[in-house]
C-alpha cells in the first residue's frame, strides 16, 4: 500500500476511534464511573439509532437537528431503566455485579425482540442529512463529513463529562454513591435520584452517539451488539473511573484496529485491540488511566 494509503487507513482509524469513544462515553459513565454493568449498552445504542431514524422518517428534518430530541428521549429511557430495573438489581448483597449482568442481558434481549417486533428486522438507513455523502479531502486523505462531525461531538461530550465529574458536586455524589450506596444517605444524598440522573446522562450520551451514527450507519435490531464489545474494551482499557481514559482508549482502539489491518488479514483486525488490552492490563492492572 502506498504511503498515502497508509495515511488514509490511520486517519480513518483515528476518526473511527473518536466514534468508538463517542459510543463508549455513555458507558464510561454508567460502567466506568457508577460501576454498574450494563449489558444492554449496544441495545441502547440501537434504540437511539431507531429513534433518530424514526424521527427523521416522520418529520423529514435533518437528523443533525434532531439530536437534542434523541438525547432527551434516551435520557428519559435511561432514567426509567435505572428506576425500573437496575435499582432492583443492586439489591443483591453478595453478587450484585452478576445480577446486573443478567438483568441487563435480559433487558438487551427484550429490547432486541421489541425492536424486531416494532420496526421489523429490516435494515434501515437515513439518507436525508446534509452531511451524508460529503467528504473532506485533506491532501488526498478522505475524511467523511458525518464521521468528522461525530468526532467533534465526541470530543465535546467528553469535555462536558469531564467537567461534570471533576467540577461539580454531582460528580462527587455519583462517585460516593458508587462507593457506598447506603452511606450517601448519611450526608443527605438520595442515591436513587443521583443514579437515575447518572443513567439519564449516560443514556443521553448514548442517544448522542446513536443520533450521530444513524447519519452514516445502517440500523437494524442487531446493530448494537457489534459495537458493545468495543465499548467495553474501550472503557476498561482507558481504566474505570477515568473519563479521559475512555477518550484516549477510544482513539487508541481505532488507531490500533486500523493499523492491524496493515499486518494481519482484516478479518482479524480486532486482534490488535485485544492483544493491546491484555498487554496494557498486564502491566497496568487498572487500565491506562484507571483509578479503580
Amino acid at each position, binding site marked *: 500500500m502506498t504511503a498515502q494509503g497508509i495515511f488514509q487507513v490511520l486517519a480513518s482509524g483515528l476518526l473511527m476511534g473518536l466514534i468508538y469513544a463517542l459510543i463508549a462515553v455513555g458507558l464510561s459513565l454508567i460502567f466506568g464511573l457508577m460501576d454498574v454493568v450494563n449489558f444492554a449498552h449496544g441495545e441502547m445504542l440501537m434504540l437511539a439509532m431507531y429513534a433518530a431514524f424514526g424521527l427523521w422518517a416522520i418529520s423529514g428534518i435533518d437528523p443533525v437537528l434532531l439530536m437534542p430530541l434523541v438525547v432527551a428521549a434516551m435520557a428519559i429511557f435511561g432514567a426509567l431503566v435505572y428506576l425500573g430495573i437496575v435499582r432492583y438489581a443492586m439489591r443483591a448483597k453478595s453478587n450484585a455485579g452478576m445480577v446486573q449482568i443478567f438483568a441487563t442481558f435480559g433487558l438487551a434481549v427484550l429490547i432486541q425482540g421489541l425492536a424486531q417486533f416494532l420496526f421489523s428486522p429490516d435494515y434501515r438507513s437515513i439518507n436525508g442529512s446534509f452531511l451524508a455523502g460529503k467528504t473532506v479531502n485533506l491532501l488526498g486523505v478522505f475524511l467523511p463529513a458525518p464521521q468528522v462531525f461525530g468526532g467533534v461531538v465526541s470530543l465535546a461530550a467528553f469535555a462536558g463529562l469531564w467537567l461534570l465529574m471533576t467540577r461539580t458536586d454531582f460528580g462527587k455524589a455519583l462517585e460516593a454513591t458508587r462507593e457506598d450506596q447506603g452511606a450517601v444517605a448519611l*450526608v443527605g444524598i438520595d442515591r436513587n435520584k443521583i443514579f437515575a440522573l447518572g443513567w439519564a446522562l449516560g443514556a443521553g450520551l448514548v442517544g448522542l452517539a446513536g443520533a450521530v451514527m444513524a447519519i452514516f450507519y445502517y440500523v437494524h435490531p442487531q446493530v448494537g451488539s457489534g459495537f458493545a464489545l468495543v465499548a467495553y474494551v474501550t472503557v476498561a482499557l482507558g481504566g474505570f473511573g477515568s473519563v479521559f481514559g475512555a477518550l484516549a482508549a477510544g482513539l487508541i482502539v481505532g488507531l490500533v484496529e486500523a493499523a492491524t489491518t496493515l499486518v494481519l488479514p482484516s478479518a482479524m483486525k480486532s486482534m490488535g485491540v485485544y492483544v493491546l488490552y491484555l498487554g496494557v492490563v498486564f502491566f497496568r492492572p487498572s487500565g491506562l488511566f484507571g483509578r479503580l
Partner: protein
Amino acid sequence: MLLEVDHLTTAYGGLVAVADVSIGVAEGEIVVVAGANGAGKSTLLKSISGLERPRGGTITFAGERIDRLAGHLITSRGLAYVPENKRLFPRLTVRDNLRLGSWLHRREPDREAPLETVFRLFPRLAERLDQRAATLSGGEQQMLAIGRALMSRPRLLMLDEPSQGIMPKLVDEIFAAVKVIRDSGVTVLLVEQRLMESLEIADRAYVLQTGRVVLDGPARQIMDDPEVRRVYLGM
C-alpha cells in the same frame, strides 16, 4: 422533645435487637445510651437514622414522624449520624468526603463554614486533605467521620462510639468537642463505652440491656448507680 422514640422494635430476621424501646432527647441536651456489647445501641441509632427499618413503634423528630422516611430525607431534616463502622467513601479524598458532608447546603455560599470547626478539632485532617479515606489510619478515619457529619450542620448529632480507636490524648478532646458542639446549639445523642467520661459531659442517660431500656435518668444518677458500676464497670 426534639427526638422522641416511642416503643421502637427492630429485628434482624428473627433476632429482635431493639425491643419496645422509648427514649427522648430534648433540644440542647447531651444524652448517652450505654449498654453491653450487643445490647442494641447501634441498632437503635441505625433505626433512627433510617439505615435499618424498624419493625414497630414510632420515631418523631422536631414534631415530624421520620420512621417511614428514606434515609437521605432523615438527614435532610437535620439529623446526622456517625455510625460505628464510619461508612466513609473510601476511594474519595478527605477533601471530597468533607465536601459531600455539606451536600445539603451545596447551594449556600457559606457551605464550607463548619470546616473551620472541623479543622480546629482535628488538625490532622487538614494535613491529609488529598489522601484517600481508605488509606487513613483508623483514628484518622474516625476523625473524618465526625468531621463529615459536622459539615451537614445538624440539629441532632448521633455518635456511635466516637472515641473508638482514638488516642488517649484526643479522647478527652473529643468529649470536650462534643460539649463545644452542644454549646453551639447542636443536640447530641451519644453511644459510648467510656461510660464515665461520657456521663461527665452528659445531661441524661439510658442503659440498654438485650434490647430493652433497663435504666434511665440524669447522668449523675446513672453514674452513681451501684448496679451500673457493678455490672458495667465491674466495680
